[in-house]
């Protein structure tokens, strides 16, 4: 009887081991990845570089502030043709403010304010855990691989495969898929850097896309630091003044 019971317990244990880790663990890891990538409220500068197959490139510098899981505002500092253009994202709502033209207009996360492979969802990225649930987690080549599924149909990518360094809990690579299962782009996280105050994260994110062969976009993070920000900084009326927070 005891033998039977033990063998049943053993069988159950084997079955449990065969099934990938439950999504609760994955969601908890995803939240840790989010916090390791940035504090709850912070400011940062980013340089965006678009590279074309012929070697030509275009660069943009933007200043951004983020608070909570789903509020982010950015303003272009250079080049001169883009200076002052500002974007605000509150959850799924994104607005673009063009200086002199006046009022902000609503835009979508699939569009790109810079051109190139990064779209607004990448540039105005929310916390991954705000937009995705972890459906499955597995060990692969010394990394954790999280299978993430969008919480709603309005998220830019239907699903993500995120490879995470299991010690540092930082992403190494993310593949972004459309609902059809087609690979849209791949993000590569590089150059882990100490930004101070315990914030250690990749300073470079590269992306390429099978849809745009030979093109590459790079985002370089500079001066990322924790900052207390007023809620009013994330409003349409404040959008023209985001640069004053620098």
């Amino acid at each position, binding site marked *: 009887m005891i033998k039977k019971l033990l063998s049943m317990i053993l069988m159950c244990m084997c079955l449990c081991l065969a099934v990938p880790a439950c999504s609760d663990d994955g969601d908890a890891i995803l939240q840790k990845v989010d916090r390791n990538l940035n504090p709850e409220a912070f400011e940062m500068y980013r340089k965006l570089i678009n590279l074309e197959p012929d070697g030509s490139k275009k660069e943009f510098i933007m200043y951004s502030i983020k608070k909570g899981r789903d509020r982010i505002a950015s303003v272009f500092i250079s080049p*001169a043709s883009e200076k002052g253009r500002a974007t605000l994202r509150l959850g799924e709502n994104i607005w673009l403010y063009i200086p002199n033209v006046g*009022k902000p207009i609503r835009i979508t996360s*699939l*569009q790109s304010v810079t051109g190139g492979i990064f779209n607004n969802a990448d540039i105005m990225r929310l916390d991954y855990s705000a937009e995705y649930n972890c459906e499955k987690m597995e060990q692969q080549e010394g990394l954790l691989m999280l299978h993430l599924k969008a919480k709603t149909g309005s998220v830019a990518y239907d699903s993500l495969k995120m490879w995470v360094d299991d010690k540092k809990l930082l992403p190494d690579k993310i593949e972004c898929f459309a609902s059809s299962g087609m690979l849209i782009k791949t993000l590569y996280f590089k150059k882990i850097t100490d930004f101070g105050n315990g914030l250690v994260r990749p300073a470079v994110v590269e992306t390429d896309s099978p849809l745009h062969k030979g093109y590459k976009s790079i985002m370089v993070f500079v001066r990322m630091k924790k900052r207390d920000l007023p809620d009013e900084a994330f*409003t*349409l009326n404040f959008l023209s003044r985001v640069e004053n927070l620098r």
Partner: protein
Amino acid sequence: MSKALFVLSVYVAGLVFIFLQHAFGQGEYKFDLAEIEKEIKKKPYHIGGFLEFRPVLFSLDQESAFHKLRFFDQDEGTTLEQYNFGLRLEGSYQKGIASLYFRTDSRLWYDYQGRDGDIDLQEGYLSLKPGPIFTLETGKKVVQWGKGYAFNPVAFVSRPKDPDDPAEALEGYYVVMADLIKSFGGPLKTLAFTPAILPATESINDDFGTLNHINFAAKLYFLLWDTDLDILFFTGESRTTRYGFDFAGNIKTNFEIHGELAWITDFDKKSIDSEGNLSTEESDILRCLLGIRYLTANEITFTVEYYHNGGGIDKDDAENLFRFVDHAYDTFLDTGDSVQLDKAARLSRSTLAALKPMRDYLYFRAGWKEPFDILYFTPAVTSIINLTDRSLSITPELVYSPETNLELRLRGTFLTGDKNTEYGEKQNDYKVELRIRYYFN
């Protein structure tokens, strides 16, 4: 011989350099963190702007009413050229809670009338920002209210946009305005109140309306759930009292809907009889707009707006004006007397020469961002249809930015419509324009 060889060597070396640069440059990038640190260093002042060269070719419709009004006593042929040179300068200076901003436009143009130019202060104001919830601004400033892309019936204290080029910066009015913002945690996410005072005198805002009066306007903004809502109000002696409401929201992330509604009291509605006499009737009118913006999976953005101008000229009145112009022109040809044509010109200036002066319009624009993997290239087509008389304009355009800070735009505008319709009676059949802008700071 040696000189030719030298030139050939330089030429070949140049080609090799270009080839190697591209071959080795592919997929590589370099960045210097110290250089980026230098680039992001904030200065208290900023000066920037752009240089512009814009040649335009007009193809004239010699049978049209507006051509007869302008060229009745001269023959300029079937085409006209215009060469425009522009310099926009804008700058700012910030110290503590105070900041100054200015924007000027300098223009030089050369056309069949010779050379001319002007310099305008488009905006120039002082801002005081003691904190994120309160801002006070005074000076010449664009106050752009409303949610529409091509039309803004609720923009009570702004100059009207040009629907043919709605993204162009406007000239401001002299105002004193405040902005109070409050954020909340519930369904009402943001509440903002923006009052404005706008004086109209002989020295400032002299084209706003009746002079020597102080006017008041206000906007109350709500971000309720995920929808932008504004309630707007204007009162004063320079223009009649008006009330407005607008909204914008996303039905899906790639599908936006917006609308505006303006109720204008005691508006002087104009009508024209067959003798070319102008009469006005005072009544309350409605101006409204309903629009959508839709983005397809392959990055084509469609913008469609329906605009109703309750105070606009109706079809019969427009036909009366165009017939009167024809009659005045015939009189001029028979007698050499231009009195009737002068009267017709005055009449057209106060009615049909305004931007989109008639009752109902449909605005359509489709822009395709970076098709065929051509970065920074956007072809687009825009059409404005006068629903009242079924005439329309079609504007295909190509916008390309081959280098940082350099923007090229090539566009043609083709007008079509029957006799006695708005676009059928415009001065041009079509115009072709190249715009080259170089931005600097």
